[in-house]
């Protein structure tokens, strides 16, 4: 076995320039794939994480049916119980509670319909990015009950500013009138117009009092340590709830169920990316096909001699295959190493693409994009390169098997 390998290795270096160019081509393809795949996956991860951090979290705990129809009566009756469960589950980075209801908000000049969300200021800052999106004024403090954060568009439409008063009027959990006066403490700008125009945040305790919620809430927002942990965390929480009968009415939707459009958009992008990569690999394969062809035809005489002295066609086939495999492997390894290094460099520094600030801002993505090296991104591309190059090296080998020794030797 190893003699074919040794010979293969020596053979490919008989023509160093050609071998180097071939290896370079394979390395290039691998490197590009590693980098681009890491970039794509990194972008997705950034997009998902950013989107979930604005409001939905990686997963949530809610009453069953709340996801489809946000009725104020569909509450989580005992958030403390839920907290106890969540504290035992590993992989959760942070969680917070929210309650919300549709209300009228009225300033001196205007009245609008909005969603009022009661948040726990301390816990919320760990879960969502809202604190960092405050453009004017301040974020809420722990004991703030009747101060509010509103979006920039809403503050413009209502013609109000910091310290102005807003009246909210809605319907409480028990149907009674929910009314309160809120003082504006901060104005935020999330970049998402819908959000900035329709949302008011106030202290959770204040909300619960105004809307007759008692101690109940509507949503538990959970961020996991990383995107990969979401599935497992979800399972664990569900299992804990299944055990405690009182919690059987709770559902645990994840971000994919809450924002199906995001997932599908990513899937579509991934598919189109894969198509492009495959085309790239095919171009490379054809590019280097000649090398493999040459490797066989140039040495027809040599093979003829080998056959004449008794080498079996099988062994020769093995030899040529090993030559291809050697070149390919060196190329791939080189590509993975260089690609990983480049990726890691940008993973640190981030890539800034001129002109994309607006579109990224709309999705709340920071203006630098970060590729993410992972096992998949480092190996998937090169693996496909390996397979396709392998296939393309098979063709010349097939010709080899048809050689007749005498013909071959006289070809020269």
């Amino acid at each position: 076995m190893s003699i074919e390998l040794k010979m293969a290795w020596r053979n490919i270096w008989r023509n160093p320039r050609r071998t180097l160019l071939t290896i370079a081509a394979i390395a290039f393809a691998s490197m590009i794939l590693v980098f681009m795949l890491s970039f794509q996956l990194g972008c997705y991860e950034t997009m998902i994480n950013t989107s979930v951090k604005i409001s939905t979290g990686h997963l949530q705990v809610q009453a069953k049916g709340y996801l489809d129809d946000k009725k104020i009566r569909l509450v989580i009756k005992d958030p403390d119980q839920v907290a106890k469960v969540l504290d035992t589950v590993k992989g959760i980075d942070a969680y917070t509670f929210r309650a919300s209801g549709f209300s009228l908000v009225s300033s001196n000049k205007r009245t609008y319909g909005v969603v009022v969300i009661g948040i726990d200021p301390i816990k919320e800052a760990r879960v969502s990015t809202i604190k960092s999106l405050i453009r004017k004024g301040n974020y809420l403090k722990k004991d703030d009950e009747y101060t509010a954060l509103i979006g920039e568009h809403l503050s413009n439409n209502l013609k109000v500013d910091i310290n102005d008063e807003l009246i909210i009027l809605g319907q409480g959990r028990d149907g009674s009138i929910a009314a309160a006066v809120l003082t504006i403490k901060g104005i935020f700008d999330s970049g998402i117009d819908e959000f900035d125009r329709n949302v008011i945040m106030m202290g959770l305790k204040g909300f619960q009092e105004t809307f007759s919620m008692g101690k109940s809430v509507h949503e538990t927002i959970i961020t996991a340590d990383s995107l990969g942990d979401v599935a497992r965390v979800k399972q664990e929480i569900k299992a804990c709830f299944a055990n405690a009968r009182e919690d059987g009415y709770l559902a645990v939707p994840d971000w994919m169920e809450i924002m199906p459009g995001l997932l599908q958009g990513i899937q579509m992008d991934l598919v189109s990316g894969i198509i492009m990569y495959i085309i790239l690999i095919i171009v490379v394969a054809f590019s280097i096909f000649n090398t493999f062809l040459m490797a066989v035809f140039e040495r027809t005489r040599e093979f003829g001699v080998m056959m004449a002295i008794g080498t079996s066609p099988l062994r020769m086939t093995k030899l040529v295959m090993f030559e291809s495999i050697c070149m390919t492997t060196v190329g791939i390894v080189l590509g993975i190493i260089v690609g990983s290094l480049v990726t890691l460099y940008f993973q640190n520094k981030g890539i800034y693409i001129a002109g994309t600030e607006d579109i990224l801002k709309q999705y709340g993505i920071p203006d630098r994009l970060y590729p993410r090296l992972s096992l998949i991104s480092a190996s998937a591309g090169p693996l496909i390169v390996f397979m396709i190059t392998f296939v393309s090296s098979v063709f010349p080998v097939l010709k080899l098997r048809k050689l007749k020794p005498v013909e071959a030797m006289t070809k020269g």
Partner: protein
Amino acid sequence: MRRTMLIVVILFFAVSSQVLAQMNAETIVKNAFDYWRGEASVSTSIMTIHRSDWERSMTIKTWTRGESDSLFVITKPAKDRGNGTLKTGNGMWMYNPKVNRVIKLPPSMMSQGWQGSDFSNNDLAKSDSLIKDYVHTLEGTKADQGKNIYLIKSMPKPDAPVIWGMIKLSIREDNILLSEAFFDEDFKAVKIMTAWDIRKTSDKLFPMKWKMQKSDAIDEYTQFVYEKIDFIKSLRKTIFTRANLKNSGL
């Protein structure tokens, strides 16, 4: 000649009985409506909202005047005391003592239940809609406890801005409204209001218990029980103003 006259007479009666039926139905409804509203009234009632998993009661003082002015103020429980709703003409305002503001109800609130009940804000705002927006026909009568009850079908006028496809009323011959059933455009029942427990109050008989019941959920209803209702000749116009809504003397 005599035959022709006979035919003419018969036709005349046939046509006019149709018209009479309609006219009669309209008169019946108008009378019942006027009877219900009186010229003016002051009342205290307890409204109970019942759902499958909870129940809420509140005591309400109500002033009505003519066909369209109404003022409702909650007196109990203490948490909701002073909350009021004023309806005049086409507008509806709400007052909440906690925020000390009178707010005009915008369109987005109109289809919501008043105070969470099965009576929508629109139901209250358009309380005179039954007279204005419908064409009534007498479908039949039935007898109950020695009294005649008229069964009336009310169809919305073609351009009337009402969401119902049909309303069916049953009105006693002494002008007491016994039930009002609301149907959608496919004539499926959506909710039904019934009145019973007829007693003498002031100088006339009046049902003291009213219930608005959703047709597809048996344990979801709102019930009104009048503790006291006085029909009087007139009430000052100033009662039905925003200023009064705010300082309803409570």
